[in-house]
């Protein structure tokens, strides 16, 4: 609902608190499936390599059932990504669009990377048991493409949370800003570590069911993953210490404590199956939610402040623009009512600003041109030739080309010019003048450019603009006389006012006789 505001960016679908809550939940779900998918793909490729390099690996058939859920996990991960993407663009419009805009091509690269990754990992799964080269290549390339995506996402988020660095980042265009490389690197590794922990936990419950060996293997992976998270997590925390607050500290403490409990459970490896499983199912969500909350608190500490500043500016601008709204809508309405599907509208819209509504070459824009627009009311030309002029424009002048109108519209326009200016009818003839004198001037001077019969010479065609082809183009005697006498300003056509009037009249007549209105050139 627009209500009183005119700027759509200021209209919110629901209260901020709800939006933040929804974003937190949806992003959490998305991230969870991303981690499961990443963990599955990474471990599956590692198992495959182990199997190929030594006899001490998991069997291929088990690896196939291990990678099988990947198809579903990645589908859900992608789908669940759309929701937070939507809410993100509502809550943090400014930060989101600015940073994705600054990341430009890297951000866009996510799409082809994901398609390639998904298709290759699918190929890896289906060819795992046949041959080596194809599944190995597909697996390595697919996983490589897949692992690039969280790198880009974490890069964008790191930038988004640092509004102070945007200007610098924008000025240096592209490339990872040195400003937060350490932070970004540890953050990225932390995502990969989490993918191992949660991925292994997923398979502990799903694919390793009832198989003691596999269970032990998964437990080792969980333990290793947690230890890795500690090693990476400490420098990651140091890298954000400047914007620490008590909320972040609380969330991180809770998460770490829960992670330690989980690690101890994996390490002690006591085997009351039910106990371990149930406890782990309780403890993992605690770790996940706590760490996610820490991330959210960090993000909000910079972004909300910055976002509010932008919205305040936006409101001020909106108030200012309100005064122009009614006029903007008036113009919009009149544009909607103007349909360029008939000669009159096209002439008035596209031609008259230079050539004038009455074709006198006196339109408001035309007056500013150094080479004045032609007086259409005086033109009498061959249809085909004129059509080409309209379609191609005239280089060396301001005359644009009009190929953006299809054949029918050009026909309508030409018909309109005929009805307004009789442009395809023969020009009336003026006084005959001194034919002999005119002939000799023509042969000695004019032919240099215009050619014997009016066809532009080789020299003439080096000019800018090229003179018209007088075999197909003529003017009224008055206009012709005007040009011969005073020249065509801005072009090479110079004034010949020193010639006697009779000679000039003869030239006018001679030039008119060259033009063939109906030639099928």
């Amino acid at each position, binding site marked *: *609902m*627009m209500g009183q505001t005119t*700027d*759509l*960016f200021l*209209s919110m*679908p629901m209260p901020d608190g709800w939006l933040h809550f929804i974003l937190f939940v949806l992003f959490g779900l998305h991230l969870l499936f991303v981690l499961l998918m990443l963990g599955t793909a990474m471990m599956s490729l590692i198992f495959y390599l182990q199997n190929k390099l030594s006899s001490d690996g998991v069997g291929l058939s088990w690896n196939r059932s291990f990678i099988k859920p990947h*198809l579903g996990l*990645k*589908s*859900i991960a*992608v*789908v*669940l990504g*759309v*929701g937070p*993407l939507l809410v993100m*663009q*509502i809550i943090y419009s400014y930060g*989101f669009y*600015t940073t*994705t805009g600054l990341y*430009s091509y890297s951000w*866009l690269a*996510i*799409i082809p990377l994901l*398609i390639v990754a*998904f*298709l290759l990992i699918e190929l890896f799964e289906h060819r795992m048991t046949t041959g080596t080269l194809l599944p190995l290549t597909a697996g390595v390339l697919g996983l490589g493409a897949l692992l690039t995506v969280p790198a880009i996402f974490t890069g964008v988020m790191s930038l988004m949370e640092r509004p102070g660095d945007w200007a610098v980042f*924008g000025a240096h265009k592209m490339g990872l800003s040195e400003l937060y490389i350490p932070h970004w690197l540890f953050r990225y590794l932390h995502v990969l570590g989490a993918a191992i922990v949660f991925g292994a936990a997923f398979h502990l419950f799903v694919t390793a069911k009832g198989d003691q060996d596999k269970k032990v293997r998964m437990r080792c992976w969980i333990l290793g993953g947690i230890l890795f998270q500690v090693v990476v997590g400490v420098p990651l925390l140091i890298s954000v210490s400047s914007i620490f607050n008590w909320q972040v500290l609380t969330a991180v403490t809770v998460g770490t404590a829960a992670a330690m409990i989980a690690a101890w459970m994996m390490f002690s490896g006591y085997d009351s199956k039910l106990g371990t499983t149930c406890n782990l199912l309780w403890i993992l969500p605690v770790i996940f939610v706590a760490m996610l909350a820490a991330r959210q608190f960090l993000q909000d500490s910079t972004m909300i402040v910055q976002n509010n500043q932008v919205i305040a500016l936006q409101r001020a601008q909106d108030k200012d*623009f309100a005064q*122009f*709204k009614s006029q*903007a*809508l008036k*113009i919009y309405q009149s*544009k909607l*009512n103007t*349909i360029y*599907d008939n000669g009159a509208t096209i002439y008035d*819209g*596209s031609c008259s600003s*230079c050539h004038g509504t009455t074709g006198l070459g006196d339109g408001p*824009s*035309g007056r*500013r*041109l150094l080479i004045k627009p032609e007086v259409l009311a005086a033109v009498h030309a061959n249809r085909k030739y004129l059509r080409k002029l309209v*379609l*191609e*424009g005239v280089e*060396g*002048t*301001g005359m644009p080309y009009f*190929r*953006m109108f*299809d*054949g029918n519209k050009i026909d309508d326009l030409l018909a309109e010019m005929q009805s307004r200016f009789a442009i395809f009818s023969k020009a009336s003839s003026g006084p005959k003048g001194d034919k002999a004198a005119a002939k000799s001037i023509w042969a000695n001077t004019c032919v240099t450019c215009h050619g014997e019969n009016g066809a532009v010479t*080789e020299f003439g*065609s*080096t000019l800018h603009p090229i003179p018209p082809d007088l075999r197909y183009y003529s003017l009224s005697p008055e206009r012709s006389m005007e040009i011969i006498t005073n020249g065509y300003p801005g072009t090479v056509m110079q004034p010949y006012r020193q010639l006697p009037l009779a000679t000039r009249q003869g030239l006018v007549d001679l030039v008119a006789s060259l033009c063939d209105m109906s030639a099928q050139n």
Partner: protein
Amino acid sequence: MNFPLLHIPWLGDGMTIALDAVLHVVISHGVAIGLTIMVALFQTLHATGKGRFWGDIAHSLLLPIVIITTSVGAVTGVGIWFITGALAPGGIGSLIHLFFWPWFIEWLAFTTEVIILLIYYYNWDRLAESKPYTLMLLGWGYVVAALISAVLISGILGFMLTPDGWPWNGTFVQAYFNPTFLPQCILRIAAGIALGAMFAIGWLGWRYHGADKNRGQALRLCGLVLLIAGIVTGASAVIYFSRVPETFLTHWRYAVATSKLAQFTWLLPLVNAVAVLFIVLTAVTAMLRLRRTSMFLFIPTIILCLGMVTEFERVREFVRGPYLLPGYMFANQIKLEQWVAARKEGRSMLKSMKWIAANDVQAPAAVAGKALFDANCGACHTLDGLNSISQRLRGRTLEGVNAITAITQQLAPFMPPFTGTDQERLSMSTYLYYYANKDVVLRPRLMKEGK
């Protein structure tokens, strides 16, 4: 809001979005809706005892459907968000604020759709023989979710062409339930089913390994579906285009073909007629169970179908004219009010631009000229690629270029006006004049070199 501007060089923004969007439309309509409806239909025939082979056909189609829709279809759909967000944040951001709820609900439908599809796929072997009716319910449940998602999107797409009274009243109901909503829904769903039937015919002809008799039965069914869906598509397209304002629709030939080809006014109607003829022929040969003929007809027909999808989407985009949001924002993401303000009060455009990429290669005047070109024209024109501004301005005089930039709105009705001061317009024109003529060598040209 002022965001960093990104324009794709050479390919241009429009073509970049189009490449992704057309791929997405073909998969989301043709595979996720059309072909999956065929699968649900085949499985239903199996469940109701019409023969085991129906189930086999459905099952063998399912894996490619799942892989293509989840790996390419879904990702290119998200891709539309990514690309529009990077290329037109002001536009897509405004649309999201306006249509948050339909998009959010559509997302829920989409999520449901994918989850049902995965359940359908992972449980097929378990249910096909023992509980065929449960599987049938899953299949049609999926179809319902997919259709809901298609219907929800139609309102937003229709708004961009026929905003109804929204620009004046700003009410959501008018914006969303606009005149082209319903015909577009039917058009998209019917076209999707027709495409799905086409894909199934191709697959039956080229890939099916069962008995000829069974193939013939399946072909007949697909041909029938193709014919009916095709007729509905055609009828709804007629209604749809009758409700689209003629203002920009009249330029559809120019939108679809190159400007040179658009001079031949019979060309596109002829190509479309040929495409329709091929679709009808394919449907009829399939109904007559002619395997070989339909096999070979399938190839040109599917190419023509993809062409028609592209043509439809191109026309639909073009008919928006110079607006991203009708009556609200120009295609270059400049709001109508901002332009009026600049025109009436001579407000500077450059001063309102936060993100002008500095560089140490160009003179400050050229940087300003380029920035103004990007902000005003870059959404549709590239410098040297598709719809190249150089090609259009080459050889024109400087004051000629400046005259053209002054009257873009009248010159071609689908161009937005320049926003900025007269001085800024001259900066831009100067930049473009030098850019367009940078390769023009001042030397006598010979006749034989042509113009």
